[in-house]
């Protein structure tokens, strides 16, 4: 264990269950660096996890309070917690792409609509990898996976003209960012800003899966080459997106779908009220016998 994990994580859970070469730990590390940078401790933050690679790797690792949701439902649980806990108690959720943008998308959108003060970290390995490598809502078009043996022929949330972050912005999220799990201090700063934003925040991290996406979609088992493909495909390299995994059969994915900008995508702290604070205000008024309608601030 390193200094960071000794400070914040349970020793018996580290190293985690992730495959060798899985980039989830890189995402995990950036969250901890952000927490450390903000001077927060184990009692300042409650950590929730979803289901899948991301949930399993981070489940119950935090030294403070943890909770786990069923698949795609951790946002609903967090919404209840948000209304029960004081604002000073931060809530961070680590979930996967299938959890957030697939089965749990409606819950996620409702949290964004209410601008609940939650920090959602989506660790995206471009498919359902913990169940064997089926395609998911962010799998690149054309990708060969266990469930798309002839290449994925449906549009995903990471298309050139269809971006899940645009949808979340339209739904009312007040902080959105996107990074590759290998990004440096800039990604830590994004997580810090997400935690500090008094509303709904989401940081989308794309990270390498060697075992399934690498082996099947990229036809590449060398971890260094899989990592190189991710770095090139997501903007580090000058090459054509979708290429560059090295020798061998080459990537079995389409082209023209990646090369996203990385960094802060949308930041509007304080532009919308946090519904949980309104509920708390209203409850206090009711308790004092000063009932009346719930002034939402959301109505024109």
């Amino acid at each position, binding site marked *: 264990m390193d200094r960071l994990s000794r400070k914040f994580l349970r020793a018996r859970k580290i190293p985690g269950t992730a495959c*060798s070469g899985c980039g*989830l730990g890189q995402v995990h590390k950036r969250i901890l660096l952000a927490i450390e940078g903000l001077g927060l401790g184990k009692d300042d933050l409650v950590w929730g996890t979803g289901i899948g690679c991301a949930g399993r790797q981070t489940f119950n690792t935090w030294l403070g309070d943890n909770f786990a949701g069923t698949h795609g439902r951790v946002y609903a649980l967090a919404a209840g917690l948000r209304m029960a806990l004081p604002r000073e108690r931060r809530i961070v959720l680590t979930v996967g792409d299938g959890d957030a943008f697939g089965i749990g998308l409606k819950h996620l959108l409702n949290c964004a609509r209410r601008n609940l003060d939650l920090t959602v970290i989506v660790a995206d390995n471009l498919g359902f990898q913990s169940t064997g490598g089926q395609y998911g809502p962010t799998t690149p078009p054309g990708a060969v996976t266990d469930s798309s043996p002839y290449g994925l022929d449906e549009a995903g949330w990471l298309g050139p003209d269809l971006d899940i972050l645009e949808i979340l912005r339209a739904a009312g999220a007040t902080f959105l960012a996107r990074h590759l799990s290998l990004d440096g201090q800039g990604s830590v700063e994004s997580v810090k800003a997400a935690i500090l934003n008094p509303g709904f925040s989401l940081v989308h991290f794309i990270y390498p899966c060697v075992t399934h996406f690498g082996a099947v979609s990229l036809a590449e088992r060398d971890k*260094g080459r899989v990592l190189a493909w991710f770095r090139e495909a997501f903007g580090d390299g000058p090459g054509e997106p979708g290429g560059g995994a090295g020798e061998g059969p080459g990537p079995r994915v389409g082209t023209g779908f990646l090369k996203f900008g990385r960094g802060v995508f949308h930041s509007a702290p304080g532009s919308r009220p946090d519904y949980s604070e309104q509920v708390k205000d209203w409850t206090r008024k009711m308790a004092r016998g000063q009932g009346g309608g719930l002034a939402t601030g959301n109505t024109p």
Partner: protein
Amino acid sequence: MAHDFEISLDFEACKGCGYCLEVCPGNVFDPGGVHNGKGYRPPVAARPGDCLGCQGCFMACPDFCLEVLRAPGKG
């Protein structure tokens, strides 16, 4: 020779992904030849004197088993 930085590697926690070798601009690491208890071969910090202290390997290590420390007496 005294080094500015020391590489601390938790041999048993390492899963041998080799990302530290991939990202190191100073060619500090060599592939390892010895298996740990899990069957992985952690890399070796063969040339710590070449370490620039950039923390790239620390940021790339997904298993919380590697860190770059200031060498004693180097501030």
